[in-house]
């Protein structure tokens, strides 16, 4: 009997290595290669980033279209992953967005996931179409909401109407994010609410998520906002309200970031923050789980947008970096 734990200890790793992470069926004609690839999405802004360096697993597809992706290398915490297949002759890193040959789908996955993909009703894959996985079902709900609002959006072409639809979509997605019990879908909802609301509302939504959940790489760079200067006229005397208003206007005038600063993407703002803290490209790449070459590319873009030529000049924007 003493040998039993040792026996189990020896067999367990073999058993786990053999377990599947994702199983599915894809119907391919003879123009497609019989290989399925899995890429880790390092940041929700990189959903449509296509690089061999994101590919972390691959598997053969059987003649009947079935495939099994196994692995013990998947992330500890849930991440978005992309599964794709390629036409014959295409490089492994190939991404086709839209049209009948769209070659990919997204899933939420962690190292303990055992996902069974539903067969697609049309095309090769159904996005987030996974049975009995609440995290993926939440992602599917968000995509259904987006599809719903996209359909409403096409009813009229007036700017006022479209702005109203964008605002309504943003409000719905933020409400979903606030009530969602999973981190990844909550962040995914905020990511797609990025229109129709102002940047501060968006940052507040992300900060609320950061408060509710424990550490996750997708939360890196989300810096809690300083408490907003909420003026509560009912609680303050008339003079105080006036002073606050004057102070607010002066603050806005004095602290308004340059127009170029607003052109920075959220990822560029994260990188700017790390640049400001004196990190090297390699360190930033490590922090954000992206390639150093990508950081380099972002740094170049930041320099262009802010019209600066060195890291030293980043300090000029300290006031707004701290406030991000």
């Amino acid at each position, binding site marked *: 009997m003493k040998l039993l734990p040792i026996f189990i200890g020896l067999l367990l790793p073999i058993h786990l290595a053999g377990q599947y992470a994702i199983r599915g069926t894809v119907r391919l004609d003879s123009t497609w290669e019989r290989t399925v690839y899995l890429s*880790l999405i*390092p940041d929700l802004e*990189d959903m*449509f*980033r*296509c*690089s*061999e*360096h*994101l*590919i*972390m*697993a*691959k598997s053969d597809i059987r003649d009947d279209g079935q495939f099994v992706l196994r692995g013990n*290398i998947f*992330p500890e915490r849930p991440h978005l992953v992309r599964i794709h297949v390629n036409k014959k002759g*295409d*490089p*492994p*890193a*190939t*991404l*086709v*967005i*839209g*049209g009948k040959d769209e070659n990919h789908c997204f899933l939420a996955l962690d190292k303990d996931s055992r996902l069974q993909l539903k067969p697609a009703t049309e095309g090769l894959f159904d996005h987030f179409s996974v049975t009995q996985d609440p995290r993926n079902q939440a992602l599917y709900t968000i995509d259904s909401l987006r599809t719903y609002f996209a359909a409403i*959006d*096409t*009813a*009229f*072409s007036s*700017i006022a109407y*479209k*702005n109203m639809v*964008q605002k309504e979509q943003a409000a719905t997605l933020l409400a979903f994010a606030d009530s969602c019990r999973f981190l990844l879908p909550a962040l995914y909802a905020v990511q797609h609410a*990025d*229109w129709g609301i102002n940047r501060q509302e968006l940052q507040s939504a992300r900060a609320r998520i950061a408060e509710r959940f424990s550490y996750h790489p997708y939360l890196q760079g989300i810096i809690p906002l300083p408490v907003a200067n909420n003026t509560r006229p009912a609680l303050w005397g008339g003079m105080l309200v006036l002073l606050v208003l004057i102070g607010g206007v002066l603050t806005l005038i004095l602290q308004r970031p340059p127009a170029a600063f607003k052109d920075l993407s959220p990822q560029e703002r994260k990188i700017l923050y790390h640049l400001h803290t004196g990190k090297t490209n*390699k360190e930033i790449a490590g922090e954000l*789980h992206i*390639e*150093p*070459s*990508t950081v*380099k*590319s972002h740094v*170049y*873009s930041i320099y*262009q947008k802010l019209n600066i030529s060195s890291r030293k000049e980043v300090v000029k924007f300290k006031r707004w970096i701290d406030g991000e």
Partner: protein
Amino acid sequence: MLVCFIFSGLILQAQQDGDLSVDFDFENTTEVKEILVPIGTDVSKIMFQFSGKIKGGSLKVRILDPNGKKEGAFQLEAVSRDEAKEKSEQQEGEDKSYTYSIIGKSRSQARGSMRKQVSKPMPGQWKVEIDAYSVDGKLDANIQQITE
């Protein structure tokens, strides 16, 4: 209309009443380029089509509506022979437990295409941003406007 265009840093302006096809050839090119697409109230649909293949650098394509809302985007990344060698040296000694790549140390290519159709587009200045960093490769862009 087909315009073969050598990357020069200029802003392209799509014809309001026609289609635009542009071929970009990149040779270790680093530049940001914009295609402006003015959309009138009579346009019922815009069709964007992009197809790119690169063997080095990073290429980003984004479609933005007049509010700046991203209506579609993709990014291709490839590693040239020199970069592959550099990465190989860098990866030695680094913790690979998180970012794991099955082909991380070899030269790579990337191919991407995107078809995006927008019905009843918001009138105003639409924009396609093409952001190239040390790119070797090509990108074909085609934008069609359909009027009522």
